[in-house]
């Protein structure tokens, strides 16, 4: 099937099989391997991408054809003009990662969270990332990182918008 998807601001027209999952389309067809796959039961969240800027979707539970006509933002699209997005900077600063495998999904989930709730409290942050597993960090620093980014974004709101 022919689809046209905009990924990180770039439009791709591709022929895909109907059974191809969005995660594999991103990774194998577009070479965007920042989106990870950690399970096949929709449980880990390391495949999360943003759809149309304001929806966090697990790209392992969606077919590529369902993304036809939509805009997808992946972790590769967060950096703007060679500058890390405040969330990326905060995950780095706050040791919000160890092995880093869960990080892209955590980043994209929090990216969408901060779009809807620019100043979430700790409980809201924990609720938002409830579908993202991290086996390394114990989560504490991930929560701190999202708090840091939220504070920073409040100071410079323009940085929140990506790829639109």
């Amino acid at each position, binding site marked *: 099937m022919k689809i046209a998807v905009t990924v990180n601001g770039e439009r791709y027209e591709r022929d895909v099989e109907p059974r191809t999952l969005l995660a594999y389309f991103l990774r194998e067809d577009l070479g965007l*391997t920042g989106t990870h796959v950690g399970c096949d039961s929709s449980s880990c969240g*390391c495949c999360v991408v943003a759809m149309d800027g304001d929806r966090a979707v697990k790209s392992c539970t969606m077919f590529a054809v369902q993304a036809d006509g939509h805009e997808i933002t992946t972790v590769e699209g*967060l950096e703007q003009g060679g500058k*890390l997005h405040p969330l990326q900077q905060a995950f780095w600063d706050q040791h919000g990662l160890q*092995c880093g495998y869960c990080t892209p999904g955590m980043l994209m989930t929090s990216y969408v969270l901060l779009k809807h709730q620019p100043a979430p409290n700790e409980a809201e942050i924990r609720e938002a990332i409830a579908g993202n*597993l991290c086996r390394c960090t114990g989560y504490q620093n991930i929560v701190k990182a999202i708090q840091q980014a939220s504070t920073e974004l409040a100071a410079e709101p323009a940085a929140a918008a990506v790829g639109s």
Partner: protein
Amino acid sequence: MDPGIIGQSLARIEGPLKVTGTAAYTSDHTKERVAYAVPVGSTIANGRIAALNISKAREMPGIVEIYHRGNVGALYKPSPEAGAIDEARPPFADDVIRYYGQYVALVVAETFEDATAAASVVDVVYADVAAPNVELQLVADDEPAEVSRRGDPEAAYDASPIKIDRTYITPAETHNPIELHASLATYDDDGFTLYETTQAIVNHRNVVSEILNVPRENVRIVMKFLGSGFGGKLWPWSHGTLAAAAARNLGRPVKLVVTRKQMFQTVGHRARTQQRVRMSAQRNGSLTSLRHEAVNDAGMLDEYDENCGEATPHFYGTSNLLVTGGQTRRNIGSPTAMRGPGAVPGLFATESAYDELAIELGLDPVQLRLQNEPTRDQSLDVPFSSRHYAECLTVGAEKFGWSLRSPAIGSMRKDGSILGWGMSGCSWLAARFAAEARVELHADGSARVAIGTQDIGTGTYTVLAQLVAETTGIPIGRITVELGDTRLPPGPTSGGSMVTASVIPAVLEAARAAMKSAIGLATTLERQPFKGWSPEDLNFQSGKIVARNGASGKQIDYHEVLQNASVAMVSGGGKAASTFGEEHPKRSSHSYGAHFLEIAWQPEIARLRVNRVVTVIDAGRIVNPRAALNQIEGAVVMGVGMALLEEAHYDPRTGAPINSNLADYIVATNADTPRMDVTFLDYPDTKLNELGARGVGEIGLAGMASAIASAVYHATGVRVRTLPIDIEKLL
């Protein structure tokens, strides 16, 4: 040495790659003409393959080849000298099925989707199918081995007024790193290049070269970023062998990613253990004997010793002690090391028993531990290199507010919950693996450190850069770290929390050799400040060459020296021997710690959670406190999961691990995270290496489950001796 970088909480140097999605994990690598492999696993656990019908799968679109016993080609069992592997039988070696999920065929196709679809129609006909042995009760098949003995524990036990005799059980647990195991294998005139999810590239090369029967030189292992392993990725597993065999046979690259379900079947798990602990004491609390007898399960073909008594002989002060270990075979995939192997399940048993003994004695558990603290390692009869366990206990008790504990069961309440306060000690070995390293100083002012070890997420990239920065005074931003490739000097396995301790001597020696070379060069250069000087009179400081006495006031940047000499770089090598498994060590080297924690129990709604944890760790000098803190916090949360949630269940009819996904095998999520307060004592263990750093990857998990079980007892009066502590056990 320019002090200051060691001990700083630097952010990880590889952080930018990880937050931008550009860090390449094993399955992110790709190659021209890559084919995709999907293994087919058996759906029985005990029997044999009578026939493999692959004709239907062959007709499926995109099929490249289907491998099985008849066509996979030669694969050998590695010799014991090659290195470590838990399942030594090569895949497809015979038609006997010994565990559920054992690979019986490999489908290779043009796309992952094609391979998956065809794998689902491979039809396996089984014969001699028998009920699998997945019996939970563990009795050693052979006489258990005596691991440690001193005094006369049997007589001391019989003669003591206070005794306890209890059995503790820890279940099979799966590692579940978020990254799936994967291999990308290529084969050409130079041999094999294998991208592997491994915690031990050097061991991997040595073992796999024997399986494939090619010289070591013809196998290169690459692993730049690992999505964690927790022990599950230490040693080679059969999927990697299959990917390599397929690449060899086809002459094209083959990628294989193990599914989450297969990760419950074929890449190891923490062995189930059953441990009998007998302790006796005088009425004053003096520990008169300790017997710790453990049995763990193993696969049908390979030995697996969980070594539950890993910490017991040195940790407990008593003149009479016995530690034994036995194994019993089951129709399960081989167990393997999981974070804190041996000590973690072992300490659950012995520390729980210690808590039970304290209650028998009417003594505070902290007091009992302090009272029996040994002054030397009584099993080896050698001094401790650095043991500050007592201080872990007293500092932890103080920070937690332990003195406010009222010992009566259910006597502490808050906000409608019953609170339970529990504590436990922990210990983990400290040793070094052999390591070699190379450090280069470049004419552009940068430095490079190269070592064939790996960063499994713990911060090794950053630690290596810190070591070079500290030694040379070159700013951290100008240091490149290269690891994760067997073409580099052989470095340590990322296991046993030993990487940091292991790389220190080799990297420091290499950096010093490179500095010495730069100094030597400075004394040969015409029209330069140190022409004709003796190298002994010169020093390398903050990236500059200076006169040792400082009197002349002369100095020159090392990179200017290199530029003036028209050399691109100077370099040095370093090498340090292993201290791991020494037969007659002169000292007993371990890390220590204590957890104090509070649980809240709400019987009306059957809700149990861990509220807060205070942890104090004595792990020598800490190279990067934030990274180390993160290791302990992660381990504490994993400990909450171990205590309350984690257990792999095997179906007694089929032998299948039934909760083989992340929805049914529950790991701790952020909702389970307690408040954590972690303190490191600062006692450098300079007997282990010059900086005095030990390791922090595993110790934080040890003792967590026993502290939680003790707190649960304090709240509910129910002593849970079989993990996990699920709610049903409390009702």
